[in-house]
């Protein structure tokens, strides 16, 4: 009698349940990194302080200006203004997404969380914005529209081959 399909997959899953063990050195490396992190100024405090700095406020104003330009020239259904990267590394992410109920930013800087970094609607209809403080480096990210639709940033370079085919963009934040 042929094997039922579910039985086959159950057998495969059972075989995969106990792989060769992970090297215990990984645990030690994790805790070494965690202890090193703990000795630095907490990341979330740096972020919060930065968000309310005068430079951050200036960037919010710059972002609104960018929205106005982007919304005016928008001829496509969905487009964005490329992120800007001032010397203080506050980056404004702007997406023109008319009809969207929510937009968020997900990337390797927030562990691809769909809820950690929401964009805010602006006075320009259809334009959404958020400013994010970022350390120098290369980042992959995408916008998430209405909690489920992943959208690349049309104003930034695509990240081919990343995330197993999930669309994402790539951006480099320069060093000051």
């Amino acid at each position, binding site marked *: 009698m042929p094997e039922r399909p579910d039985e086959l*997959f159950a057998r*495969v*899953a059972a075989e*995969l349940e*106990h792989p060769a063990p992970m090297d215990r050195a990984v645990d030690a490396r994790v805790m070494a990194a965690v202890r090193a992190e703990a000795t630095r100024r907490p*990341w979330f405090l740096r972020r919060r302080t930065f968000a309310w700095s005068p430079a951050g406020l200036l960037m919010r104003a710059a972002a609104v200006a960018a929205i106005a330009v982007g919304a005016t020239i928008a001829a496509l259904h969905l487009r964005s203004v490329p992120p800007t990267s001032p010397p203080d590394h506050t980056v404004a992410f702007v997406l023109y997404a008319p009809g969207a109920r929510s937009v968020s930013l997900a990337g390797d800087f927030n*562990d*691809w969380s769909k809820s950690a970094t929401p964009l805010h609607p602006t006075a320009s209809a259809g334009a959404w914005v958020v400013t994010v403080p970022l350390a120098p480096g290369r980042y992959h990210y995408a916008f998430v529209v209405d909690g*489920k639709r992943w959208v690349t940033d049309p104003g930034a370079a695509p990240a081919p081959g990343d995330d*197993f085919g999930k669309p994402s963009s790539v951006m480099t934040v320069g060093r000051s």
Partner: protein
Amino acid sequence: MTGPTDRSAPDDAAIVRRVLDGDVEAYADLVARHRDRLWRYAFHILRDREDAEDAVQEALVRAYRALPRSEPDRFGSWLFQILVNRCRTIGGRRGRRERVQVADEGALERAAVEDLSERHAWREAIAWALDRLSAEQREAFLLKYVEELSYEEMAEMTGDGVSALKMRVKRACDALRALLEGVTRA
């Protein structure tokens, strides 16, 4: 086996709060509680021991950095989501290197001799078949059948829609069935 969402959630939450209160060493308890499950997924999805170790390490360190933004009651699910995305990033960034062994060879050696060749062949067949799935199909199959997530949980983990995930699992199953058909008949 249970899904990641609520397994030992109250204990996780208590440990998370200790860490947030400044007890850095308590994070080792969270590492110990979740390492094996993280490793199992990373190992099978990336098919490379070094990449899988990097993925687990990066996920755990990133989770620590972002701990103030976590929901302590859902720590396990949140941590696993970070791992899934790290694996996607690493898998896309690095070319596949040599294939890893599928299972614990020590356990294999403890098996009865007459059973050894059959089990070894089965494991080799699974490794061969998994290598032939697309990364998306392998991810969908592992989340559904090995991690035993619901489609709703899978959607939350991956950001993909339920209908797309169902199709991906179906295609993965169709491919595995075809690939393993000869093995199961043997």
